[in-house]
C-alpha cells in the first residue's frame, strides 16, 4: 500500500541483520566452542570463523559412560512423558471440543490455569510426597510430574485443534449408529494428526528442557542432560569441552523442531497462546 524509499529499505535491512545477529550469536558461540580445543576456547579476541577445529570434545563425551547415561535418562523421561501426555490429553481435548455439557466445556480453563502454576508451588509438596512413597530419584517421580503439566497443555491445544475439525463427518457416523468412541477413534483422530504432531513436539521440548523438576527429583543415576551439563561445572576444574558438547546435544531437538518442523511449532505457539 505504501511504497518504501531506497534509504528506508537499506536501514530496515541493516536493522534486520542486527536483530538476526543478536539472536544467533550466543547459539553460534556455543556450537563453535564445542569444536574448539580447550586452549583456543577462551582466547581474546575471540576466533569467530577460523580456528583449529576438533571433534575430540564429542568423542570424549560419547566415550564417557556418564554422558551416555544422561542422554539415556533424558530419552527415557522425554519419550514416556510424551506418550503419556498424548494418551491422556488428546481424548480429553476432543471431549471438551465436542461436548454440549457446559461444565465439561469450561473445564478447559481449569487446565489452562494449571499450566500457569509456578513449578515451585507443586514441587515442594510433591517432593515430600515422593519421599514418603520412596519414589524420589526414580524415573517415575519425574515423568509423572512432567506429564501432569504437559497433558494439561495437550488438552488445551487439542481442544482448539478439534474445534477447527469439521464435525459433519462425525455426525454422519453417529446417525449411522456409530458410538461417540468410534467417531473419535475412527474419524476425528485420523483428521487431527497435524495437531497431535504439534502437541507431541511441545511435550518433547518441555520435558527435554526441564531443569527444575529434574534438579530436585533425580538421583545420580537418573540425572538428565541439563543436570549433566551442570555437573561438568561442579568437578574440580570446569570442563568447558564437556559442558558445550552436552549443551549442543541438549539443543538438538530444539534445532530440529525450529528449523525443520517449524510449521507445527508455530501452529502451537499461536494456538496455545492467543486463541481461546
Amino acid at each position, binding site marked *: 500500500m*505504501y511504497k518504501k524509499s531506497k534509504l528506508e529499505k537499506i536501514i*530496515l535491512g541493516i536493522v534486520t541483520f542486527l*536483530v538476526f545477529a543478536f*539472536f544467533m550469536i*550466543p*547459539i553460534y558461540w556455543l556450537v563453535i*566452542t564445542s569444536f574448539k580445543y580447550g586452549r583456543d576456547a577462551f582466547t*581474546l579476541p575471540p576466533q569467530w570463523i577460523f580456528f583449529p577445529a576438533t571433534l575430540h570434545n564429542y568423542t570424549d563425551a560419547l566415550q564417557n559412560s556418564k554422558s551416555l547415561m544422561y542422554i539415556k535418562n533424558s530419552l527415557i523421561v522425554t519419550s514416556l512423558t510424551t506418550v503419556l501426555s498424548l494418551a491422556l490429553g488428546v*481424548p*480429553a481435548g*476432543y*471431549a*471438551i471440543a465436542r*461436548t454440549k*455439557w457446559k461444565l*465439561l466445556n469450561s473445564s478447559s*480453563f481449569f487446565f*489452562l*490455569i*494449571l499450566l*500457569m*502454576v*509456578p*513449578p*515451585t*508451588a*507443586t514441587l*515442594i*509438596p*510433591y517432593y*515430600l*510426597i515422593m519421599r514418603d512413597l520412596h519414589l524420589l530419584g526414580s524415573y517415575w517421580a519425574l515423568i509423572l*510430574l512432567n*506429564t*501432569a*503439566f504437559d497433558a*494439561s497443555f495437550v488438552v488445551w491445544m487439542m481442544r482448539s485443534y478439534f474445534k477447527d475439525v469439521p464435525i459433519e463427518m462425525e455426525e454422519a457416523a453417529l446417525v449411522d449408529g456409530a*458410538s*461417540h468412541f468410534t467417531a*473419535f477413534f475412527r474419524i476425528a483422530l485420523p483428521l487431527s494428526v497435524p495437531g497431535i504432531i504439534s502437541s507431541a513436539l511441545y511435550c518433547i*521440548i518441555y520435558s*527435554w*528442557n526441564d*531443569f*527444575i523438576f529434574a*534438579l*530436585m527429583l533425580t538421583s545420580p543415576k537418573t540425572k538428565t542432560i541439563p543436570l549433566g*551439563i551442570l555437573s561438568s561445572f561442579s568437578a574440580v576444574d570446569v570442563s*568447558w569441552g564437556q559442558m558445550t558438547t552436552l549443551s549442543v546435544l541438549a539443543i538438538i*531437538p*530444539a534445532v530440529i*523442531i*525450529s*528449523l525443520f518442523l517449524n510449521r507445527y*511449532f*508455530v501452529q502451537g*505457539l499461536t494456538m496455545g*497462546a*492467543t486463541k*481461546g
Partner: protein
Amino acid sequence: MINQYTAKYRRFMMGEGAYFWLLLPVFIFVAAIAIYPLLFSLGISLFEYRLTDPDQVKTFIGLANYVKAFNDPVILESFQSTFLFVIGTVVIEISFGLGLALLLTAENIVSQFIRSFLLLPMALPPLVIGLVWKALYNVDWGIIPFYAKMLGLNLGHGPLAQPGWALPAVILVDIWEWTPLLMFIFLAGIKSLPIEPYEAAVVDGASRWKSFIYLTLPLLKPTFLVAILLRTMQSFKVFDIIYATTAGGPGLETTVLNFQIYKVGMIFFDMGYASALANILLFIVVILAVIYVLVLERQQL
C-alpha cells in the same frame, strides 16, 4: 426394568456420556499429581517443619509462616527484585516483539528464513541459555566485557557480579529468550487485522505513522492484553536462567521470589515456610491466570 437401566447405561456410555469418559483419566491424573500436592502444601504451610531437624517434628503454628513472610526483609527484597524483573522483561519484550513483528511481517524468503531461526531461543533449554550467557558475560574471557572494553565501557567485575548491573544483565537474557515469542503472537495479531480501515486511511491521505498509531495499535489491543498477561505470568516463574547465571547474587539483587522459595525449601529445607511462600506466589499467578481466562473467553464471543 433391567432393560430400562441397561438402555440408560448404554446411552451414558455411548452418548454424550462418552465425552465424560474420555475426559475422566486426565482429570484423575492431574488431580492426583498436581492438585493434591497443592492442597497438601496449604496444609504444610501452617506448620513449622524442617527436614534438617533430626526428629522432623511438625508443629502447628497457624498463619505464622505467612505473617513472617511479610516481615522478612529478605522476602521483601525478593518481592522488589521480582517486581523489577517482571516489569523490565514484560515492557521491553512487548515493545521489541511488536517491533520485530512489524519488521518481519512480509511473506518473502528472507523474513521466513529469519523467523524460523527466531524460534530457536524459546525452544532451547533455559539452563543452557543461562550458562551460555554466563560464559559470554565472563569478566576474564567473555566476549561481552571484551567488546565493551573496546567501546570504552568498563564492566568492572563483569555484569553478573557488579551490583546494579546484574539485574539488567539477567533481564537481557530473558529478553533474548522470550522476545521472539511475542513477535509470533503479534504476527498472528497483525495477520488477522481487517484491511478495510487501512484502505480508507490511504484514501483519506493518512501517513503510515498515523495509520499505525490510530489503526494498528487500537486494533491490536486484544493481542496486547493477552501478550502482557501471558508474559507476566511466565516472568513471575523465572528460575533456570537465574540459577545458571547469578544464583540470586550479587547480594540479593537477582533473588526473585521463585528462586528464594527454592532456596528456603531445597537448600535450607524449611518446608513449612517454603510452602507458605510458594502459596503466596501461587496466589498472585492464579489471580493473573483467572484474568487471562476471562480475557480469552470474552475475545471468543
